[in-house]
């Protein structure tokens, strides 16, 4: 057992170092974790550093990271809040989906991807990063201002879209033949219906399941439920991430929601870090060089499309020009979800999966940094927009 333990130690140590570097630079940890994975992985450009292999235990921890990441999103998912301001959220969210999903799909076809693979690429460029964006909102203090309502509203809308999208995509990718896809879709739908029913009628059961004074017992039960449901889903050909999301939403309706968040946050952060590391381990820097051309197309176009959809979304949210510019820059960062989608492509053994993974990694590395930098220098962007379109100069209605 000595070798795997040592390897795990090295893995966590490089994550720790990556975290320090990210904190020093004032940037998100996600690109730092991925870069750390590339650097110590089997495809490292520095052979002496190839210390961590792509082993089963890393895969397992990474899988737990995906399950807990989506479980937590589900837990935080508040249907009542979504419904309370559904008009504004839906308008901003639909603009976001149509503009970015549409442009993503168009670009994917343009870059020679076909049908299912194009849908993967579209998803990767559509979905913003809740993790990167929420952290920067807190760091900059925007969290106290109205623009954060619009930004978080769009992110919540994206969560719903991505849950449905992953379910469909998982069925398409894992199903194989047309009949297989139909069966997979049916199973996925059945699974979701069962979990939604659990959320609607199973609250007393879930309450009883978690009724314990011991935090230790509590944590074990929560992790057991999330991982078991995720595992059963995957065995049945349904995306484990989707199952975890809906299970999280079911738990979110119980009185234990706050305690689950408190108890499970550190586990989620730990395993999610391993997930980002494992993405780095699987990435071949050579393959990254091979996707420079598609990236040179995707990055500028989808950055601008997010800026445009974000600005429009802010305006439909009733925000003024300056705050709408903040919504625009605040939605540019892409991160964990893009990587979850790429990981699904690899798991499903999709044609050109390696290329999709490399594309997603390169894309997330650039967009997570670009998004953070844009938010930090938003003052200059706001001034620029105000100069181009002076608010006073517009005719008053």
């Amino acid at each position: 057992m000595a070798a795997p333990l040592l390897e795990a130690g090295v893995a966590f140590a490089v994550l720790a170092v990556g975290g320090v570097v990210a904190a020093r630079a004032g940037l998100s940890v996600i690109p730092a974790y991925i870069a750390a994975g590339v650097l110590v992985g089997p495809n490292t450009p520095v052979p002496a550093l190839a210390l961590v292999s792509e082993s089963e235990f890393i895969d397992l921890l990474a899988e737990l990271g995906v399950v807990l990441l989506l479980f937590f999103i589900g837990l935080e998912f508040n249907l009542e809040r979504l419904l309370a301001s559904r008009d504004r959220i839906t308008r901003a969210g639909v603009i976001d989906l149509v503009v970015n999903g549409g442009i993503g799909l168009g670009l994917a076809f343009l870059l020679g991807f076909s049908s299912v693979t194009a849908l993967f690429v579209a998803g990767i460029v559509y979905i913003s990063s809740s993790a990167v964006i929420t952290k920067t909102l807190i760091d900059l203090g925007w969290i106290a201002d109205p623009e954060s309502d619009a930004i978080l509203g769009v992110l919540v809308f994206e969560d719903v879209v991505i849950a449905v999208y992953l379910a469909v995509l998982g069925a398409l990718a894992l199903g194989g033949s047309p009949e297989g896809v139909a069966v997979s879709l049916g199973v996925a739908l059945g699974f979701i219906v069962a979990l939604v029913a659990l959320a609607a009628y199973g609250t007393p059961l879930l309450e009883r399941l978690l009724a314990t004074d011991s935090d230790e017992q509590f944590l074990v039960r929560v992790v057991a439920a999330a991982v078991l449901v995720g595992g059963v889903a995957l065995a049945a050909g349904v995306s484990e991430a989707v199952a975890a999301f809906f299970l999280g939403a079911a738990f979110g309706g119980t009185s234990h929601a706050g305690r689950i968040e408190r108890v499970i946050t550190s586990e989620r952060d730990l395993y999610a870090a391993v997930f980002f590391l494992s993405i780095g381990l699987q990435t071949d820097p050579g393959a990254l060089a091979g996707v420079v051309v598609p990236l040179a197309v995707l990055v500028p176009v989808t950055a601008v499309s997010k800026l445009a959809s974000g600005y429009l979304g802010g305006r439909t949210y009733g925000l003024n020009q300056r705050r709408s510019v903040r919504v625009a820059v605040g939605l540019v960062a892409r991160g964990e979800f893009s990587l979850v989608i790429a990981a699904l492509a690899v798991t499903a053994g999709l044609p050109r999966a390696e290329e999709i993974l490399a594309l997603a990694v390169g894309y997330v590395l650039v967009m997570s940094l670009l998004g953070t930098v844009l938010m930090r220098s938003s003052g200059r962007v706001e001034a620029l927009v105000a100069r181009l379109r002076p608010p006073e100069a517009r005719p008053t209605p």
Partner: protein
Amino acid sequence: MTVYETDVPGVGRKFELDVGRGARAVVLLHHDGRVELFRRPSPEADSQKVFDLDSTAANRLGSILEGAYFESVDTEQLEIPVGGGIIEWVEIGENSPVAGRTLAEADLRAETGVSVIAVQRGDETVPNPAGGFEIRPGDLLVTLGTRKQQAAFADRCAPE
């Protein structure tokens, strides 16, 4: 007075309160108990962070604002009937007759029945001050006594 309350997914809860002249106080309650306090001077302005508190400091600030904060005292030394005592804060003005005198000289307990259980001086709190403790202008005396005794005490400390 309306308090606006919103869920902040992944973070916690946010409360906003109008505090007059277009300004708003914004309180962000993190899941882990951390509390950030902001002030937004006008609807168009950016919020400025006033405090970033851990849960203990936030709870203490909350009870101060509620008027429910006091240091615990050794009740055995006090001669107030249980249930009849209230705690008051008495500020010593520049011209107060007790300013410049020690607690023993002022002999406040014998005269009014009120015990001085703590003195707040600037940033410093002196719990259970001894008889030799000198009262100075600007001190905030924390006192325990019945309602009637407290009234007598306040009169005694007020400028003549």
